[in-house]
Structure formats: structure tokens, C-alpha cells
């Protein structure tokens, strides 16, 4: 379980998160909505432990352990993983070698994982060097497949992906989150999958991901606080219809 309590975060001299409360229980997938600049990416980076996001109040508890000040690699070791929107290029590091790094000492067949997300031809290229938007997303997914975390953070996993690859990405994310059968609503699915443990927190603007990954809850982040919670489909429809205004009013 992930529990965030009263989280306040500064980036430089700007207060970005102003008291976020959020709880993701075992087996749950949450969608994080919010307009540009509302702090969504900052929340994910803070959860992953990026030190420039300075926690000034509150705490983050994962699997019963207070990880608020834990270094990034220890969080990864504890079972957290992230798909970045704009990961850095690492010259001289082959994608294949990065996938092996992600696998750690688990025995993973890199070739077969890569073929699942059409990344076979990229294994011998420098990581993210000259990758298109969609290729970056597939590379991030490939790394997470090898890493196999329990809590997965996705920062706009479908942005820049062409329509042809949306289904591929959507289904790969559903697989990672143990949600690969379709047609059931969130709560029914949970009953049908008592063994499901993976947790997910997904930032999406387009909402396409909802067609492939049934989510349990939606949260709207606005100006550094959670402004609205509810059924992710309903929230998405509201935002699509009348923007974020209605969500904010819901808070007040």
C-alpha cells in the first residue's frame, strides 16, 4: 500500500505541492488528472525520490515503510518503478544493457520482452538516442517489464504515441498492472482477482489509456492539492465536457 499524508513539496523556491493526501491500496490503479502545471509530474518525481523535489511537510509510506527521505535506488529496490515522460538520453549505454540493469538479478529474456513492445530493433541502440515520442514510451515500458515493480508510476504513457501503437501500449500497461482481461468494472475485477497486488498511478491527458486499463479511482490535482476524487471515467467525461472548472467547484 502507498499512503501519502499532507505532502508539501518545494522545487527551487516554488511551493508545488501544498498538502496532498492519497492512498493506493494493494491491487488498485488510480488515474491522476489535472491541468498543465498543477503538480502531477512533481508528485510522481517526489514519490520516486528525486532530490530536487524537497519535501517540507508530510510523509510517504510504502508497504508500511516511511520512504519520505529514502534515496531513489532504495525505493526501486522496495518495488517502485516509473515510466518517464521525457527520460534522458544515455550515450554509450545500449538499450539492451539498460533492460538488463532493470532486470537486476532476475532472469529475464530481453529479446522476448522487447518483441512484446516492438523494441527488438532498438536493443543495440544507445538508450533514448534519437527515439521518437512513441519509441520512448515503448522503451520505458520495456524497462518496467524487466524491472517488474509492485507500484508503477506512469507519466503520460500514451503521449506522442501514434494510434497504431496505442493498443500495444495500453495492453502492455494493463499486463504490467495485472489487468489484462477486459469487460469487467474495476470493483468486480478486484473480486475476480483476489491475488492481484500491483498498484498503479497514471497521469493521462488524453484518457485513451482508460480504454485499456480499467482504473479504480480518479484524482484531480489542482494547484498543488487534490481537488476532486471519484470514478475515473466520470471525471474524465466531466473534464472532456467542461474542462477542469467543474472539478474545482466540486472541491469548494
Amino acid at each position, binding site marked *: 500500500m502507498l499512503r501519502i499524508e499532507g505532502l508539501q513539496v518545494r522545487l527551487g523556491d516554488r511551493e508545488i505541492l501544498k498538502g496532498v493526501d492519497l492512498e493506493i491500496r494493494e491491487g488498485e490503479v488510480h488515474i491522476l488528472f489535472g491541468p498543465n502545471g498543477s503538480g502531477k509530474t512533481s508528485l510522481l518525481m517526489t514519490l*520516486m*525520490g*528525486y*532530490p530536487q523535489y524537497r519535501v517540507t511537510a508530510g510523509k510517504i509510506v510504502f508497504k508500511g515503510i516511511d520512504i519520505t527521505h529514502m*534515496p*531513489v*535506488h532504495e*525505493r*526501486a*529496490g522496495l518495488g517502485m*518503478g*516509473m515510466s*518517464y515522460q521525457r*527520460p*534522458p538520453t*544515455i*550515450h*554509450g*549505454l545500449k538499450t539492451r544493457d*539498460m533492460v538488463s*540493469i*532493470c532486470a*537486476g538479478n532476475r532472469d529475464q529474456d530481453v529479446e522476448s520482452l522487447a518483441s512484446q513492445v516492438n523494441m527488438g530493433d532498438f536493443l543495440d541502440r*544507445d538508450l533514448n538516442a534519437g527515439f521518437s515520442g512513441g519509441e520512448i514510451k515503448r522503451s520505458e515500458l520495456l*524497462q518496467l517489464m524487466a*524491472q517488474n515493480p509492485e507500484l508503477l508510476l506512469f507519466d503520460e504513457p500514451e503521449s506522442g504515441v501514434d494510434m497504431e501503437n496505442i493498443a500495444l501500449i495500453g495492453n502492455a500497461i494493463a499486463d504490467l498492472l495485472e489487468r489484462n482481461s477486459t469487460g469487467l468494472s474495476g470493483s468486480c475485477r478486484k473480486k475476480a482477482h483476489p491475488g492481484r497486488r500491483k498498484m498503479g498511478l497514471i497521469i493521462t491527458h488524453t484518457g485513451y489509456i482508460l480504454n485499456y486499463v480499467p482504473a479504480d479511482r480518479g484524482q484531480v490535482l489542482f494547484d498543488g492539492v487534490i481537488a476532486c476524487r471519484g470514478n475515473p471515467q466520470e471525471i474524465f467525461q466531466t473534464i472532456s465536457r467542461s474542462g477542469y472548472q467543474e472539478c474545482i467547484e466540486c472541491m469548494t
Partner: protein
Amino acid sequence: MHDIDEKTRKAQEAKEKKAAYGRDIDLDTYCVEGECLEPLAGLDQLTQEDRSIMLKAGVDATEQDRSGSYIQKDTSAIYATSLMDGLEILPIKEALKHDWINEYYWKLADVGQDKYTARAYTDLHNGYVIRSLPGARVTFPVQACLYLHQDALSQNVHNIIIASEDSELHVITGCVSGSHVIKGLHVGVSEFFVKKNAKLSFTMIHHWAQGMLVRPRSVGVVEEGGLFLNNYVSMKPVKSLQMYPATRLIGKGAVARFYSLLVGHPGSELDVGGRILLNAPETRAEIIARAISNGGTVISRGHLAGDIPGIKAHLECRGLILNGGDILAIPELHGKAEGVDMSHEAAVGKINQDEILYLMSRGLSEDEATATIVRGFMSVDIPGLPPDLKNQIDAAVAQTNQEVM
């Protein structure tokens, strides 16, 4: 005879002449007399210690996957053997007994350049001549080792490499010093001749002692359709190293590529350049340097000059500052005609923190992430190098990395 008098005169005049770059060295503090060693019948006669020292610079005493070897210990050539038809390997003092060597000896390098070239002429110890004959395909590398074993010696070497028309030749030269060497001076003149449609790769790995002073002086020429790959690796601490190898592309379509991997440790001064002159149509040149300062000083110079429309040349220097230290990148482009296509990029900085955190979020510790990025930084794909030789360079880099980083 006239020629010899001329060189002697130039050497006399340049005896005290300081080099254009690098700290000045008092040559008199280094001895030029070395013990005269008997030639070896085979490399299995090398001591275990010598073998393991040579291996660090890519010289393998088993000669597996090698076309031949030249070994010089201090002032003596102790082994020179070709294992292939169409390949000649001989000590330069042997070669100088033949007339044909006069076409090459001091034809590119200038005796009067500075006190180091002068000394290599007046106090020549030995060196190698490696020649692939016309049409020969010497695909396994020739290995050469210049081994400085005697403390405080000035080792003066002159090497000549000739890739004859339509031949292919790969040479790996390891320069090493013995474990007890505290100080020493290595002066090495090298002349490279890449003839019509020939392909030469020359890879030099330096593995010196901390107190060594090193002054290589290299000049090359590439004829029509020829390819010259010049790779240089220096990752071990060395007191002062200065070199500025130059190559002229004189035939249509000639290509030269220089790659260097440099690490400057605390107390080390590396001043390494590369100069390629594009003097014929359709010639191409590339100079790529990767420099890490781990607390020392690294100067990375590059100079490309072209005077024919349509030539293409690129210069790239990336520097990484790890634990303080100093990197100076000096890229120079000189276009002397309309229609030349020349570019450079230089970047000096520290490791991007985002890259470290990215790798940490995949499970690596901060130190592991840093090492992975440094390894990647130093791994340069060199087009045209046989995979086997590429593996040997990678292995040498990996071993040095492990030892010193």
C-alpha cells in the same frame, strides 16, 4: 650523404628547441644508455611479470589472433616476427641497412621540429617498421610493445608503418612501463604511409607509470582512396603527455578518423591534439575525443583544415569533469575555399544528474550509476574497425577503468 648532413645539422640546431606545447623537459636528467638485451627466440621466453605488464596495453604474449609482434624493451628490439605472408616486421635499425627505407625515414616528420625529434634522430635506440605488401589483407592485428623497464631512461624510438597499395593492415601498439619505474621519458617518432586504396588502423594504448614524461611525434599521409583510423587510449596516470599527431589527405577520396579516449588523474597533464589537412577532392576527416578529468589537467586540441570545395570534416570533443580538475577543449576549423563542409562540437561539463537518477530509479546505487555513465561515455563506436580489435580496445578500456576509476 647530403641528406644525412642536413638532418644532423637540423638536429644540432633543434637540440635545445622547446616544443610548441607541453611543459619543457630537461633532457639531460634522463639517461640514453640502456643495457643491450639479447633477442628472444619466442615470446614464451618473456618473464611472467613482463607478460602481464604487456597484456595491460593489449599485447598478448600468446600471439593468439595476431599477425605478428614487435617487442622493444628499453633500448633493445628483443623480438620482431611476422606470422603472415605479405607482412614485414623489422626493427628500424635493421631496416636502415636497406635503401628502400630512405623513401620513408624522416620523410614526413621533421628532425628540426623540437628537441624531442632531434633526440630521436641523434640518440635513436630502435623502433619498428611494419609494412603490408601490395594487396595483402592482414586482418589480424600486428602487436607492438614499447616497454620501458629501466628507471630514469630516455627511450627514443622511431616507427614507420606502411600500408602498401590495396592492402589492409591493423596495428595495436602498447606503450608500458615496468612496475618499479618511478620516472622516465619516452620519445617516439611515428610516420604513417597509407597508399592508394589501402586501409590502416593504428591503435595506441598508453599504460605508463605515474612519473613518466611522454612526447610522441606522429605524422601521416593518406593517398587516393585510402583509409586511416588512428585510435588512442590513455587512461592511466602519467606525469606529462603531449602529442599532436597530424595527417595529410593527399589523394582523392582519402579518409582519416582520429579517436581518443583520455583520462586525466590528479597530478597528470595530458595535452593531446589531432590535426588533419584535407588537400584533395572528396576527402573526409573526423576527429573525436572523449576526455575525463578525474582531478588532473586535460587539453584536447583539434585542427581541421580544408582547401578543396566538397571536402567534409567534423570535430567532436566531449569532456567530463568528475572530481575537480581541468579540461580545456580547443577545436579549430580552417576552411580555405568555398564549398567546404566543416563542423565541430565541443562540450565540457559534469555528469548530468538526471542520468544518474534515471539509472538509480532502475535499481543502481549512485556509484554504480556513475560508473555506468562513465563507461558509456568512453564507449565510442569506431566504424571500420574489425570486431576483434574493437573487443580488444573495449577490454583494455574496461580493465583500466576497473583499475583506476
